[in-house]
């Protein structure tokens, strides 16, 4: 089964993970929310799939382009 890396678009900190391991998501769904420049920036699934792994936890810092989750597609 193919996998797909979900990357953060902006540098900031992980405010809230709104999905769970094993959860099915569609393309365009919000996987987690990163707080950056006092804004809640959604991290969006670019394709549909099942969440296999989170690479970060709530409160962690993330950098622009960092992989934050792995999707099974």
């Amino acid at each position, binding site marked *: 089964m193919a996998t797909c890396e979900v990357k953060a*678009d902006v*540098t900031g900190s992980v405010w809230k993970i709104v999905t769970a391991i094993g959860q099915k998501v569609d393309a365009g769904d919000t996987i987690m929310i990163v707080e950056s*420049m006092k804004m809640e920036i959604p991290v969006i699934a670019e394709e549909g799939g099942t969440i296999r792994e989170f690479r970060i936890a709530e409160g962690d810092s993330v950098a622009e382009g960092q992989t934050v989750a792995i999707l099974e597609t």
Partner: protein
Amino acid sequence: MKTPPSSPSATDDWSAEVDELRRRRAWAERLGGDDAIAKHHAERRLTIRERIASLVDEGSFQEVGKLTGSGHYDKEGRVTGVTPAPYVMGLARIDGRSVALGGEDFTVRGGTSWSGDRKKGGQGGFVEDLACQYRIPLVNLIDGAGGSVTSITRRGHAVFPGVHGFERSVELMGSVPVVSAVLGTAAGGPAGRAILSHFTVMVRGNAHVFAAGPPVVERSLGQKITKEDLGGAHLAVDTAGTIDNAVADERECFATIRRFLSYMPQNVWELPPKIASDDAADRCEEALLRIVPRSRRKPYDMRRLVELVVDRGSVFEIQPSFGRAVITALARLSGHVVGVVANNPLVYGGAIDVKAARKQTHFIDLCDTFHIPIVFFVDVPGFMVGRDAEVAATLREGMRGVYAALQASVPMYTVVIRKCYGMAGMGTTDKNGLDFKVAWPSAEWGSLPIEGGVAAAFRREIAQHADPKRREAEIEAELRAFASPFLTAEAFGVEDIVDPRETRPYLCRFVDAAQAKLRTSLGPKFKCGVRP
């Protein structure tokens, strides 16, 4: 009756020469030969002649310099063939309007420079003179690596840099639209030529642009790097912004060039073309009433907002993947061309970083040069902050954007959607013109946002309080009561507050009225001073 001296006799016949002309033209059509063409096609690349035919109006290409090249002759001195010069150019029409265009022929010696009595294309070539003298747009279809060290043996001496200089290319930047497409590997002169353009585009995965390619990099720095990693679209477009837009293939590339030119005048002495719009100026979109979330922390889709306001289907985004904190696009309002600068709250809350600033500066210069009014859709918390931003000289690049806006003399409209703070906020206003600012009810502004400002300005009072966090929140709430846009509107500090749904009719009305000023301010723009 006597025969007039000019009447043709049996010996006055030029058929043989005309036949040679026909044969010479046919040799030119063969480019670098079947094998070279097949190899080029195998790389998923069109020949220069196919490129021109795909780009321009059918049958409109009038080639110039088709006979150039290296002739081959037999013992009797009869011509047996000509290897064409590796550059094809001339005059054509795009959507009915004349353009000068040309490009390297990669199938002949990899499109390297050719030295005849006069250069055909590239910097200082005939095609640049044609665009300049006739005041028509120039399209460069670039697929070449520039000079070759082998020319030193041909000439018997080394040429000084700039023997074919960029002076004409620079002159064109202030007089006619220049578009460059990178369709193969562009290094050296052709790469530099591409940059001296108003709009650049390259094919993702099949085109590369750099000052020097992998062999030179390895020799100079010991770095082993692939062409794609050094100058593919991911680096040149998305990361560095060296080239504006990336496209999937050559077909999309030509459609993109035609689209860009549809917003451009033929030259700076004319206005951009107005088209008949079937989109009513008084169209009011209900969705605009709910597009901005009430929570200041929640972003929204600025691209959709812009699309709901301007003429349907008229948005053409420039540099969509670079400097993403700001969106720059050509669009239309009631058929008139406008430039859109819109902050993107999804990327760093719309804060202007060094890339966004560079993109905004270039776009403002583009609009000002071609007499295109600018509409700012403002949601900017300020310049990007933090150590990385300071290392990148965001302040300097940001102020350069402010400087460019202050030098511009086209009409500008400031529509404050949400945040308008600080120097970046000031850079969205028409301070030298009407300084016309309208706001949505969701708008807020100031010299700096209240949150950060309170902690700094009331530091002692907050620190000395029994519950500093609570005191900070109280002060923020007290100050926020003054932040209503209606209070500033009472003082005429903004000229109007509009129902978001009325944004389109409002802008259409004023952009239409501004045409008189635009019509009477035509010509090149000379800007003095030293940009920061």
